[in-house]
């Protein structure tokens, strides 16, 4: 009933290929954007904006990047954090050495750097597949971390290896308060999410999915294997690179290369799997699940148990419940939260009527 499509006729292919062909979706998304762009910056608390929304959005962007590579093009990668590091240190380098380059352009360029590095480390994908490829991409993770630690030029010879992000200024406006940083992150993430959706619903996305589903048939159709796989690596790394740059500049402010270690890669991979492989929406849901749940769990737990438990026990119980929830969701819906949402939508077409 809520999702009734009856009466919504499409009279052109253009209307049929919109991102949100159903009116209800357009209304909901419009409302969400309004809340995100207007209500949150105006009335959101500093905690909500800086501690929840900014990291969630940035990690969503990295998840989206990995999802393009793994979910759409079917190429496993454990090098996500490495590509984020490339973006972060490239953005720092551009701001440091070419101050004339505007901030947003520096972000784009740092994404391009990451894309180049990603394409190079994507070369093994032409010969090896699946788990073996994942192991090969581990090389990029370790190599990039090592390079950024060892070669002083990248960190501007800082003795501790830590880089401090320069103050952000866009067209004379200092981006120094949480709402401003949040708006910057939101705008970048929204733009890139739209671009990702455009890519995956068009020719590039079809070629990626064809390679994922049956590479022999894809080749026989005339899809170039080299270009398709490398473009997936490049686009994916671009997203990760921009996410890395935002992470330093809009979230933490200062990092060392170890902030982008294998744990971060695995975290992003978990987000992709929980959210749903091959779904733009799933990337946001998966990142939300992993980022927001650990923040809500303590308050829920202390509300339930009160002071009955020793304080040291609480963090352990949290990890317990967190792990159990991940397993639970994977059993209930192996295709992730995005699929869960899709099923709900299909049910809502009829609900509350039985037929």
């Amino acid at each position, binding site marked *: 009933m809520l999702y009734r499509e009856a009466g919504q006729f499409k009279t052109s*292919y253009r209307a049929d290929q919109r991102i949100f062909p159903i009116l209800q979706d357009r209304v909901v998304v419009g409302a969400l954007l309004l809340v995100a762009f207007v209500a949150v910056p105006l009335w959101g608390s500093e905690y909500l904006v800086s501690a929840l929304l900014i990291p969630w959005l940035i990690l969503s962007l990295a998840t989206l990047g990995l999802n393009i590579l793994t979910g759409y093009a079917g190429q496993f990668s454990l090098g996500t954090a490495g590509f984020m590091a490339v973006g972060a240190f490239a953005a720092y380098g551009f701001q440091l050495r070419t101050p004339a380059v505007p901030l947003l352009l520096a972000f784009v360029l740092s994404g391009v750097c990451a894309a180049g590095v990603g394409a190079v480390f994507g070369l093994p994908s032409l010969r090896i597949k699946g788990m073996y490829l994942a192991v090969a991409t581990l090389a990029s993770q370790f190599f990039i971390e090592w390079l950024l630690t060892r070669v002083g030029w990248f960190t501007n010879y800082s003795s501790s290896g830590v880089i401090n992000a320069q103050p952000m200024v866009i067209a004379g406006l200092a981006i120094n308060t949480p709402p401003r940083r949040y708006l910057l992150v939101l705008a970048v993430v929204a733009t890139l999410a739209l671009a990702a959706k455009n890519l995956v619903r068009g020719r590039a996305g079809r070629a990626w999915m064809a390679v994922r589903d049956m590479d022999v048939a894809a080749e026989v159709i005339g899809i170039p294997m080299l270009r398709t796989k490398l473009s997936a690596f490049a686009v994916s790394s671009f997203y990760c690179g921009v996410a890395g740059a935002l992470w330093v500049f809009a979230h933490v402010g200062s990092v060392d290369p170890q902030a982008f270690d294998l744990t971060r890669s695995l975290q992003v991979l978990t987000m992709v799997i929980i959210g749903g492989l091959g779904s733009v929406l799933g990337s946001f849901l998966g990142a939300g699940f992993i980022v927001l749940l650990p923040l809500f769990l303590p308050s829920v737990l202390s509300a339930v148990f009160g002071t009955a438990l020793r304080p040291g026990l609480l963090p352990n119980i949290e990890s317990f419940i967190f792990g159990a929830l991940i397993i639970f969701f994977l059993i209930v819906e192996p295709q992730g939260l995005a699929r869960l949402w899709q099923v709900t939508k299909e049910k809502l077409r009829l609900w509350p009527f039985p037929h």
Partner: protein
Amino acid sequence: MGHPRQKVGEVLLEVSGVSLSFGGVKALHQVSFQARERELCAIIGPNGAGKSSLLNIVNGVYQPSAGTISFAGVQRKSMSPREAALGGIARTFQNIALFKGMSVLDNIMTGRDAKMHSSLLAQALYWGPAQREEMEHRCHVEKLIDFLQIEHVRKTPVGRLPYGLQKRVELARALAAEPRLLLLDEPMAGMNVEEKQDMCRFILDVNDEFGTTILLIEHDMAVVMDLADRVVVLDYGRKIADGTPEEVRRNPEVIAAYLGVPTEADREAVAEGAG
């Protein structure tokens, strides 16, 4: 089926002296044949005769160990599947090779990939030329969807479709590339009688309406004799007959390959039975 048969034109595909071995196994030995423009040519033979290997050589999946292939006047010893596709050769597979996670529409649109040119950035913006290109190709694909009568499932993921429809989607995907030569590897395997009749009709229509040359592997003799203009018979990797369905049907070697050559013991058994 009462088709006008004066349709056949110049030689489009010429396979000459092609051999292929896998280790010690000789899959094909000195096979030569021609397919002419707009011809519907069937390749038949018992299991393991090398029919699929021959198709795989024609569209570049396998490289022959000897012999040449000339397509549309260009002779070559080997080529990649992609070069074959760009040259105008499309195919379907014996075991359906659709992209399971994609919708029917997306699967068929993939067939037009080689004809699309917008850059990655233009696609990301989905504006102007990229969008127009997408719509133009969608129009073409919709005509095929209409032609093959699969309108009702265009948004369904192909994995959920019944077998017969999946075969039809695969045909549509191959046709989307507007091929000059269409290779069909057992398009009717595992189908019931009605599905077979539908598929026969579609194959004839493709041949008629688009003037596509078709190279077809099929086991159902009734189908082959009805559809094909010419039949090539393979047995143990060698060509044993080549001609019109009538000629092939009467060829003693073909009969022997399909029914076996009677041995002394068989004759005695027959004599005893008669006595």
